[in-house]
């Protein structure tokens, strides 16, 4: 892996010479002078060592040779990536690069899209999730997801959080408990309180848990959705642009929350906001046009000294 061996799957023309000392500074002129695609990307070879990220902790999620097709569209090409536990991994890249597709592979949300065909392997805690007999309900309980638009149920704040555990049977609904008027509601209240506190929302809503969740602000709704995801006691949290619909104050609350959560959870976040990726993630994976994972490394390395010229051009906002 240490040898700089270009993979065979490359773009068709000559790569830009990344050893050229002036290439960094002249990225602009380089992409204007012929070696560019219509989107403004310069062309270069993919190199395996750019994605061969070494880390100290344990691997929580591992994809290997993952390919996804949507009909004729080859959305993800041969993705292999190990995601460390209890950390924040940011997935960045231009629209259509496959980062959300990859995120959805981690809890098999793509199963819901009929045209999607997934080949390759994804392991969570060392267990292959793309094999027969995998309990998808159990999988999605362990691998929670938060979406771009806050999507609370039109129910009370309390019911939003307790919905998952109830469905999963985690809250006792035994006859005796109900007859005695205890147990269920105590356990439920405790669980709701714990999840809301973990999502940094409890103090703002503690006196109105019975109110409809749709009356909350957007930022509060998103934290409620995070609380809802946490309530089923997952260990991986997938977030697809969780703050892109929020104002800066609400965004910074979500960002603080993500940092806190990464002490206990493995967070994988797709974001279009590169500064957000830089602020909150421990490692960053850059997907580029064509569904390739081009570079994956510590976040400071990606933002200070990426290996790939295309990655540098993308994070500098020179295309995408």
């Amino acid at each position, binding site marked *: 892996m240490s040898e700089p061996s270009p993979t065979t799957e490359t773009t068709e023309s000559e790569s830009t010479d990344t050893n050229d*000392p002036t290439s*960094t500074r002249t990225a602009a002129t380089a992409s204007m002078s012929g070696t560019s695609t219509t989107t403004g990307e310069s062309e270069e070879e993919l190199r395996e060592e750019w994605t061969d990220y070494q880390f100290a902790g344990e691997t929580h999620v591992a994809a290997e040779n993952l390919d996804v097709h949507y009909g004729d569209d080859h959305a993800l090409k041969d993705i292999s990536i190990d995601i460390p536990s209890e950390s924040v991994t940011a997935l960045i890249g231009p629209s259509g690069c496959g980062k959300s597709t990859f995120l959805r592979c981690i809890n098999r949300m793509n199963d819901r899209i009929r045209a999607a065909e997934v080949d390759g392997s994804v392991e969570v805690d060392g267990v292959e999730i793309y094999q027969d007999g995998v309990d998808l309900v159990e999988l999605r309980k362990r691998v929670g997801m938060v979406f771009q638009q806050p999507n609370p149920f039109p129910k009370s704040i309390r019911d939003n959080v307790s919905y998952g555990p109830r469905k999963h049977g985690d809250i006792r609904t035994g006859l005796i408990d109900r007859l005695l008027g205890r147990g269920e509601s105590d356990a439920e209240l405790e669980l709701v309180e714990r999840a809301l506190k973990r999502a940094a929302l409890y103090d703002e809503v503690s006196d109105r848990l019975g109110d409809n969740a749709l009356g909350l602000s957007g930022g509060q709704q998103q934290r409620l959705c995070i609380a809802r995801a946490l309530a089923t006691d997952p260990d991986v949290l997938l977030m697809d642009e969780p703050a892109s619909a929020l104002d800066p104050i609400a965004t910074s609350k979500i960002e603080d929350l993500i940092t806190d959560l990464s002490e206990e959870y493995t967070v994988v976040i797709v974001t279009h906001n590169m500064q957000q990726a830089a602020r909150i993630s421990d490692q960053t994976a850059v997907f580029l046009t064509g569904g390739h994972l081009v570079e994956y490394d510590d976040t400071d390395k990606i*933002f200070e000294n990426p290996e790939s010229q295309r990655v540098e051009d993308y994070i*500098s*906002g020179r295309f995408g």
Partner: protein
Amino acid sequence: MKMARTDYQEQLDALRSDVLEMSDLVIERYEIALKSLESKDESLAREVIEGDQRINELYLELESDCIDLFALQQPVAGDLRFVASSFKIITDLERIGDLSTNLAGYALDAERERYPEVDVVYIGTEAGAMVSDAVDAYRHDDAESAREIADRDDKIDRLCGDASGVVIEDLLRTEYSDTDKEMMDDVSRLLLTIRDLERVADHAVNFCARTVYIADHDTELIY
């Protein structure tokens, strides 16, 4: 095809050419200061001292440009290394400007050559060459040259050490009356001149260190 962020690219290009312009001005002042030291030309010395104000103004303008780039454009990767390094480099340039005014000041005060065997102009010329070569390396993102230029600092240090040695040995050998104020002034001025020239070379090394960092993300010369 129109490039994304053309305005940003223009600001980066402008920063580079402004830093180079400031470099040229600083080198020009330094060379005049050396000339004034050599020829004891009062008008040249005054030109350097009065010109320092312009260098300080440029320094503040460029500092402000760098802060604007950080705050408004949030540079990353190579751009970040370039802006951060330029932000540091302009401080070195400004210091070289200050040292030039020191040298010009010594030229104004010096009436005698007490140690003609100490060739401060030679040391100064060597240190100045380091500065202008370092600027060229920055201009061309040339890390390899920058490393070589930084190595030349050892020679400057040696020249300065030898020069100070000549003065100190002489002081140890000779008995002076403690009322010889002229002697005291001459000796301390010469030692200060030597120290300032050594510092000019040190700033050239800093310049090289930042250039290596920009081009290669290599912090070896910085730390």
